[in-house]
C-alpha cells in the first residue's frame, strides 16, 4: 500500500473514531449538564454558608436561629411560608432574600420583636457593594441559596424566639446596658440564660462572680471593660483569639460601654 493510501485510510478511521467520541459525549451531555447544575448549586450553598458565617451571624445568630431584640430567625416555618404574604412580596422567596440583603431594610417591619423600634437602633444594613456594602452580587446570591437550603429543616419549626426576655428598664445604667447587649451584636455569640443563646463566645452567666479572679491585678469592672475594648488582651481558654470583633471601642460610645459593663456586672 502506498503511503498516501495508508494516510487516507488511517485518516478516515481517525475521523470516524473522532465522530464516535463526539456522539458518545453528545449522548451523555444532557445528563452532564443536569449534574453540573446540581453540583454548582451545592458549591453555591457552601460558599453562601461561609459568607453567612462571616457577615450575618452577628445579628441572625450562628445557626440562623435569630436573636431576640436584634434580628429574626431564618429557618422556621413562618419565614418559609408566611413572610412573603406579610410583606406583600409578589415574587419567590429566594428573590426576596436577595432583594432584602442587597438593599437592606431602612424601617423595621416588626419593631416590637427586633431592632428598629426607636429609629436609632440598626435595622438590616445594605449589603451590596452597589450601595456601599461589602458584598458582591454573586456572594448575595450564594447567601440566598444557603438560606433556601434550610427549607426542608424549617418546615415544621415554629419560631422559638420570644420578645426580649425581661423587659429592660431604660432609666437605669443596667437597663440601658441590656439594650446595648441586645443591639450591638453581643447576643449573637454570648449566652445569657433567658436573654440570648449564642454559642460562639463564652457564656456570660455568672460573669460578675468570676470576673474579679480572671486576670490578676484587674477588678471585675476593669476586666470586663478590657475584654470589650481589647478582646485579645485575655482570651478565655478554649476560645480562639480574634473571634471577638476588635472594634467595639469605636462603634460604641464610652457611655454605652459603661452601661454594658454595669449590666454585665449584674450577672451573678
Amino acid at each position, binding site marked *: 500500500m502506498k503511503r498516501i493510501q495508508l494516510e487516507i485510510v488511517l485518516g478516515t478511521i*481517525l475521523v470516524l473514531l473522532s465522530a464516535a467520541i463526539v456522539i458518545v459525549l453528545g449522548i451523555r451531555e444532557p445528563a452532564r449538564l443536569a449534574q*453540573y447544575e446540581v453540583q454548582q448549586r451545592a458549591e453555591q450553598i457552601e460558599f453562601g*454558608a*461561609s459568607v453567612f458565617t462571616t457577615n450575618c451571624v452577628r445579628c441572625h445568630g450562628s445557626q440562623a436561629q435569630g436573636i431576640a431584640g436584634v434580628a429574626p430567625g431564618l429557618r422556621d416555618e413562618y419565614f418559609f411560608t408566611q413572610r412573603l404574604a406579610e410583606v406583600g412580596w409578589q415574587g419567590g422567596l429566594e428573590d426576596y432574600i436577595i432583594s432584602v440583603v442587597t438593599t437592606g431594610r431602612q424601617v423595621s417591619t416588626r419593631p416590637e420583636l427586633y431592632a428598629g423600634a426607636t429609629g436609632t437602633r440598626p435595622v438590616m444594613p445594605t449589603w451590596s457593594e452597589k450601595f456601599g456594602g461589602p458584598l*458582591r452580587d454573586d456572594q448575595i446570591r450564594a447567601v440566598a441559596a444557603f438560606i433556601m437550603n434550610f427549607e426542608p429543616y424549617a418546615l415544621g419549626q415554629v419560631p422559638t424566639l420570644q420578645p426580649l426576655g425581661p423587659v429592660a428598664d431604660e432609666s437605669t445604667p443596667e437597663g440601658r446596658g441590656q439594650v446595648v447587649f441586645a443591639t450591638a451584636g453581643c447576643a449573637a455569640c454570648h449566652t445569657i440564660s433567658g436573654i440570648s443563646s449564642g454559642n460562639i463566645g463564652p457564656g456570660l452567666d455568672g460573669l460578675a462572680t468570676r470576673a474579679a479572679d480572671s486576670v490578676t491585678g484587674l477588678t471585675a469592672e476593669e476586666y470586663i471593660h478590657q475584654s470589650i475594648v481589647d478582646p485579645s488582651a485575655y482570651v478565655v481558654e478554649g476560645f480562639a483569639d480574634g473571634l471577638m470583633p476588635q472594634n467595639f471601642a469605636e462603634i460604641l460610645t464610652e457611655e454605652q460601654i459603661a452601661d454594658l459593663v454595669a449590666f454585665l456586672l449584674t450577672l451573678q
Partner: protein
Amino acid sequence: MINSLMRRFHIPPRDQWRATISKIIDDRVRIITAGLSIKELRAVMRGDPPTEKPNPRYKVITTSFIAHLRPRYYPAAATWFTHTFRLGFFTTFFFVVEVITGVILMVYYIPFPDQAYGSILEIESNVFFGELLRDIHRLGAEAMVIFSWLHLLRTYFTGSYKGPRTFTWLTGVILLLITAWLSFTGYLLPWDQLAYWAVTVGTSITESGPVVGPALNLLMRGAPDIGTGGLLRFYLQHVILFPLLAILFISVHYYKVSREHSISLPAVVEEGNVDPEKKKEANRRIDLIPDLLSHELFLIALGIFIMLVILYFRLFVSPLETHANPQQTPLDTKAPWYFWWLQGLLKIDPAAILESMVNPIFAAFGLGFRLEVSQLLNSKFIMGLIVPPTLVLILMAIPYIDRNPSRLARKRPFAIAWGVAWIFVFLALSFMGTPEYGIETPAATRIVQDLAPEEGEGPLRSIPYEELHNRQAEFIVGQDYGTDLCPGLAYQPDPEGDVNNVVVGCPHLTEVFNIFSERLLEAQADGRLPEMTAKLSVEQFQADLVNVTPHVEWTDPATGKHQTYQHTYFLHADRATEE
C-alpha cells in the same frame, strides 16, 4: 415533435447522453477543484501519476486562492519527519482550533466583571457541548504554547535560522511573543481567583518601571485595580488585536517558508558528505497535491482525535476556581506554567546577591564601607523589566550573533551547548517559580491549607459526604481512636450501583485526620509548634450541609504568644468530587 424539442433545448440524441452528462459533471468538478478532472481526482486519491499534460495539479495552485498560498512542492528531505516533527504545522493547527472555538465561545461569554464568571458557569452548565468547547479552547492554547516553543527549539538546533532565513526567525520570535500574550490575556477572562491574581501580579511588574511604569500599568489595568475597564481591555486584546497580529505575522512567516526559502534541508543533506544517489533522492520533489495535502489532512485528523481522546478520558480539565475576590489574596499565587520562569526570575534579588558577594571582600580589606544597593536595584524592575526583554532581544538577534556559516551540529558545538544550557536555565527558573520554592508559610496554616487548599479539592473536601453526615464529633489530635474514627458506620458509595459495594467505617475521614495529626505532631517535635493542641470537629449545619473545622493552638516560638489558627469548611451532600 420530441426531436424538435430536443433540438430546441440543445439536448443531444439518446446515444450521446452518457457522454454529455459525464462531461457536464466533469466540468463542474474541474470548477470546484480548480482544475482537476474526475479521472485526475481518482488518480490523486490513489497516488497515481498525473493523467494529463501539463500537470493539472500545478494548475490548482495558480487558479485557487487558498492553494496559491501553498508551495508547489517541497524537497523530499525537508519533509523528513525527524527533521521538522511537524511542529510548525501543529502550532498553526492549534491556532485555527483556537479561532474556531474562540468565536463560538464569544457568543456566550460576557466581558463584564459582574457577569463574566457567571457566563463561564453558564457555558459549563447550560450550553450543549459548552464544557467540551471550553476544554478544547484551553487545551489548544496550552498546546499552541508548547508547540511554538518546541518549533523554536527545533529551528535552533537544526541551525535553520541562519541566512537566508534570518528574517523568518525574527517573525517566528514575534509569533512566540504573540502566542504567549494571547494565552495570558485569555487567562483573565474567566474572572476567577486564579485569573485575577495571576494578572494582577503580572501587570504589577510594569509598575516598577521608571517614569512611564505607573502609567503603563494604568494603561493595561484601566484603573489602579483590574476591574471593568481592565477586563474589557484584556478581552479586546484577546479577541481582536492579537489574533489580527497573529494572522499578519503567521502570513509573513509562512510566506517566507512557502514562497521564498522553502523549509530548510537537513544540514547533512546540505553540507554533509552524502553520496550523489542519496542527494538526488533528498532533492526529489514532493508535490503539494497529492502528497503534502493528504499528509496534512491526516495530521489534522490525528490532532483532532488526540485532543478528543485526552478530553474524553478527562486527562485535561479546564480549571475554574472561585469568583475573583480583590479583597482576598490567595496563599499561593500561581502564574500559568509557561510564565513560571518569569516568576522564578522575580524571586531573585540582584541587590542581595551583589551585596553578599562584594561586602565580604570589603570587610577582608578592612574597609569601613558597605555596599547598600537595595534601594537602587529594585528586584521587580531588574528581573521583571530589564532581564526578560533583554532575553527576547538576544533571542531575536541570534542569527546576527551566530556568524558560524555551518549548520551541522558537530561544527557548531558552542551553539548547541549554549542552547542546551538555556533549556536547563529555564527549567531551573521554572522550578523556582513554583510556590514550593522559597515561600515560607506558617506551619499551622500550611498544614491546614494542604488538607484543604483555597482552590481545588484537596483531601479534606474529597471526604465522601456519607462519612460526615450527622457525625457531630470532635477528634482531638494525640488521642487514640483506633483504626477507624467511625466504628459502626457503613455506607454505599454509589447508591444506584452495586448493593454489595459497601464502605465500612470512614476511611477517608480517618485518613485526613491521620495526616492532620501526623504533620502537626511532626511540627511539634521539630519545634515549629510548641505546646500544640489541635482538634478536627465535624458539625451538622443544615440537613445536607456539614462544617468541618481544623483548629490548632500553639505558643509562638519567636514571641512566646499563644496563637490559634482555625478554618471552617462547608461540605454539601451534592458537591462534586474528583473521584
